[in-house]
């Protein structure tokens, strides 16, 4: 049985009777297997938090149904609240309580003790244990996230919901955080994690790319990239700002956007596209030191391409 089943979920927010309701989620369906790290990747406002709140029984969807561990999110909300761990996007622990007090409090309200499940959080908690007397509000961003994860895990949940756990966290702490998630997966915990960072998608077992409340693709990160299906060129030259303008106005170009130090370019006539043609055009337009390379698409490229086709529809 899958850990999480989402069927045709639609969520709208009505602000006032006159205005049109804002659609946060549109007819979303997916399933998450037990012990899987499932990533929900999308920009701000894509509907990630709404989805998490529906699955953690905090919101009710207008249409569709969902189950967590076989329990219905509306009918059996009490059972779900006993068994899931939830870490909201905003730091939501008691800032005026110390690290230790927060952990003890959450352990107690979930009918357990820190000692009982210490082995599960040991890796994470041991890093902030030297600061256990410090008030949670005085911790750094990375340490706050570690404490929040410890509190969400202390009752050994079967499903863990992490809403943007790495937003606002430094690169090193982000890497550590994902390593922790890998270890938790080995404990058999299903993890749903949302992130606006495309590079984190490759760290998930499977990802759902979400935009404007719609899922554009669900697959393994590699398969999504393989489905890119077009040649992707990384381009750079001496006058980078001019290149973007030139390429965008060239009718042969399908899409062009900046990526790191390069521009990623897809041609309209994909079958016959070659580096020489692009090189010649840029050279003709007066650019020098032109470097063009055929590269593999990553998640961000796939996301951009999917967004492009969504918009075309």
């Amino acid at each position: 049985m899958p850990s999480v089943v989402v069927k045709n979920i639609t969520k709208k927010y009505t602000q006032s009777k006159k205005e049109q309701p804002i659609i946060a989620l549109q007819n979303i369906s997916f399933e998450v297997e037990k012990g899987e790290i499932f990533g929900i990747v999308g920009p701000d406002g894509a509907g990630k938090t709404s989805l998490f709140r529906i699955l953690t029984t905090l919101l009710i969807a207008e249409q569709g149904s969902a189950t967590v561990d076989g329990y219905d999110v509306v009918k059996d909300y009490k059972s779900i609240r006993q068994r899931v761990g939830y870490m909201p996007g905003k730091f939501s622990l008691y800032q005026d309580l110390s690290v230790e007090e927060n952990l003890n409090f959450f352990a107690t309200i979930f009918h357990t003790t820190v000692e009982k499940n210490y082995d599960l959080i040991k890796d994470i908690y041991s890093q902030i244990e030297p600061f256990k007397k410090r008030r949670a509000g005085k911790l750094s961003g990375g340490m706050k996230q570690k404490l929040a994860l410890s509190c969400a895990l202390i009752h050994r949940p079967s499903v863990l919901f992490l809403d943007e756990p790495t937003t606002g966290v430094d690169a090193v702490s982000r890497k550590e955080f994902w390593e922790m998630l890998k270890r938790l997966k080995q404990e058999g915990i299903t993890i749903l994690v949302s992130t606006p960072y495309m590079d984190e998608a490759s760290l998930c077992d499977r990802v759902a790319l979400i935009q404007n409340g719609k899922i554009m693709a669900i697959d393994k990160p590699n398969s999504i990239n393989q489905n890119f299906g077009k040649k992707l060129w990384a381009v750079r030259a001496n006058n980078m700002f001019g290149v973007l303008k030139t390429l965008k106005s060239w009718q042969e170009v399908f899409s062009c956007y900046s990526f790191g130090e390069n521009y990623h370019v897809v041609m309209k006539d994909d079958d016959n596209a070659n580096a020489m043609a692009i090189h010649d055009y840029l050279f003709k337009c007066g650019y020098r030191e032109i470097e063009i390379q055929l590269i593999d698409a990553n998640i961000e490229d796939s996301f951009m391409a999917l967004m492009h086709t969504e918009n075309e529809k």
Partner: protein
Amino acid sequence: MKQFFAFVKKEFFHIWRDKRTLFILMGIPITQIIIFGFALTNEVKNAKIAVLDYARDNVSQQLIQKIAANKYFQIDKSLYSYQQVEPAFKEGKIKMAIVFPQNFASDLLHGNKAQLQFITDATDPNVATTLVNYANAIVKDYQTDINKTTVYPYTIETEIRMMYNPELKGAYSFVPGVMALILMLTCAMMTSIAIVKEKEMGTMEVILVSPLKPFRVILAKAVPYMLLSMINVISILLLSVFVLDVPIRGSLLLLLSESLLFTITSLALGLLISSLTNSQQVAMLFSFLGLFLPTTVFSGYMFPIENMPIPLQIISNIVPAKWYYNIVKAIMIKGLGIASVWKETLILLAMTIVLFTVSIKKFKTRLA
């Protein structure tokens, strides 16, 4: 049960660590009692007056001496002409002027009738009336003194007894009022803010996704404030007995249990406010306008309810503080027992039950 105590403990940490709020919470009753007890009295004492004596005879001198000897009056200045009267009032120091016309003594003793003028500053009508009454009484006294030999054929002698508060102390009526006000404020405002704070900080989101029952959350939030309020009740009572000399004539136990009941009523109101609002500011405003004002206006300790128009009198019935105020007055000042306040107690109890049920029903188990 362990969950519940963990929550209560956490709540105490919040209160204890927010030293400023704690200070306000425990400081309000003490400052209120002291302010009301010493600064804001509506009793008239040592009112400054001016005297304009055109007569300068023995009768006017005797009267002036009598007035000066009285504790209600203090002669601030002597005036020499009628033109000085108004400027003296305009200076703002004096509350009353007494004008003796020329030939006051001879008018009185030979013409059998003398005139005396009291001029008062009626910007504060209560003070003006009180002063005139006091001055009249002194004049009447003097009149009786000089007419000792005369025998009136018929006389009615009035005998006045001020029951329960023979010295007419203001403290007798405001101590119960302040108690009602403080309990309402600390309990209702503080609990509503405490709960709304969890919503604002996002911790409510995490608490909701836990096995904690809403009923327990609400109760655990209320318990610390109930204890703090009882400490406040005790400190108010200690201050009023030992500093303001207000007696507790009835049973202390009954008074404390009625206070506990009212505390719970206020807590229930606070819980209701917290379930209707989402930000601390709104909760504060709500508590202030919805509780503080009605409590001061309608409990009856500042403005007598009997003098209000009928619609307002009816509204005053739904203000819990009114009933508590009456109960405290009856027990503390009149020394009555439960037999005399059971009706008010029942009303408070019913209000509490209704408010509690509504706030638990209204407590959202989800975010929206």
